[in-house]
């Protein structure tokens, strides 16, 4: 059975195929993390979700930056901040992370987190079992950094937004993972109708969709 087949009949083919594309790449070497490390990031997201109210990462400087594990305690703490305490990330925390692991690794880490969260959170909300993570594949990261990046849109350097919302290019430093993240967004949110105020491709009306979106963003204390 292919991943996510139990969701057939509940979700559109476009959504299931976008999940399968994410799963096909999750355990492969990325631009800056190995396959094992990427699955380690995904596992840390899972182990920390749903977050217990009393669980706080605290000061990053208190975590070991080296270990014999696939991911260091420091990187695991960064994963948990990105996944569960995102609104606490300010310029100071960002600088601390970048000075330790670099912006390329941080962007890819965050992009992996966004993909796993979108899929796992949907399973949680529907009361369905989460899909087992794929097996990691051997190989080295490609060490690719895209050209044409600009400052001024985000803490991270990004592609120019042109006519896209800033969120579309937010993690474009991790070009391939950002593209897969946006594939999920297209399948799960806007389709090809982002600019249209009346939607025909969803079961809820667009105001109902935006109501859920606005409340979710408020719960996550996301000003954007």
């Amino acid at each position, binding site marked *: 059975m292919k991943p996510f087949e139990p969701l057939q009949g509940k*979700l559109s083919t476009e*959504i299931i195929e976008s999940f399968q594309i994410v799963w096909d790449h999750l355990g492969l070497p990325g631009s800056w993390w190995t396959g094992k490390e990427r699955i380690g990031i995904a596992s840390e997201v899972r182990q920390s979700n*749903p977050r217990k109210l009393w669980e706080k990462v605290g000061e990053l400087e208190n975590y070991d930056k080296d270990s014999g594990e696939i991911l260091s305690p420091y990187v695991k703490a960064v994963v948990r901040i*990105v996944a569960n305490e*995102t*609104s*606490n*990330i*300010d*310029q100071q925390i*960002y600088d601390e992370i970048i000075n330790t692991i670099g912006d390329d690794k941080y*962007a890819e880490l*965050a992009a992996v*987190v*966004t993909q796993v*969260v*979108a*899929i796992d*959170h*949907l399973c949680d*909300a*529907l009361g369905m079992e989460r899909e087992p993570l794929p097996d990691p594949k051997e190989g080295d990261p490609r060490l690719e950094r895209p050209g044409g990046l600009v400052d001024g*849109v*985000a*803490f*991270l350097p*990004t592609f120019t*937004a042109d006519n896209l919302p*800033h*969120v579309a290019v*937010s*993690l474009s430093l991790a070009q391939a993972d950002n593209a897969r*993240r946006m594939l*999920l*967004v297209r399948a*799960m*949110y806007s389709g090809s109708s982002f600019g249209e*105020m*009346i939607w025909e491709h*969803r*079961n*809820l*009306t*667009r*105001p*109902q*969709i*935006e*109501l*859920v*979106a606005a*409340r*979710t*963003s*408020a719960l*996550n*204390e*996301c*000003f*954007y």
Partner: protein
Amino acid sequence: MLLSSSSAAIDETINVSDAVTGDGSDVGVPYSEQLITFTEAAHRVDDSLPVARENLIAAIGEKGMIDAAITTAVFRSLNIAADSSGIRIDDEWEEIAAHLAMETAADEFSTAANSPNIQNRIHSIHHGQ
């Protein structure tokens, strides 16, 4: 922002403050109370979620509940992308974002610091500039 615009497109008037912080009884969107209760429960993933899910299905059907679940999942992901990268509000949305922030107190979120132009606009609005 898109809640206001999409509601206006179908001649609905909505209460943004209730949508963001209230119980949903005064939003002006059909079944908003059940949608908000479900969204809150899905955010927590706690014991209230199965009941919220069933109540939403009773109100709008299973396909509607699934659509709400899809939306809360993808927006949690979008929120992480926005705030882990530190993006600022897009230039063309600054004016309406300033007004909505004043209406909903969203400018009190720490992530508002990523969009300093909004704070400047709010200051200007307060001082009639």
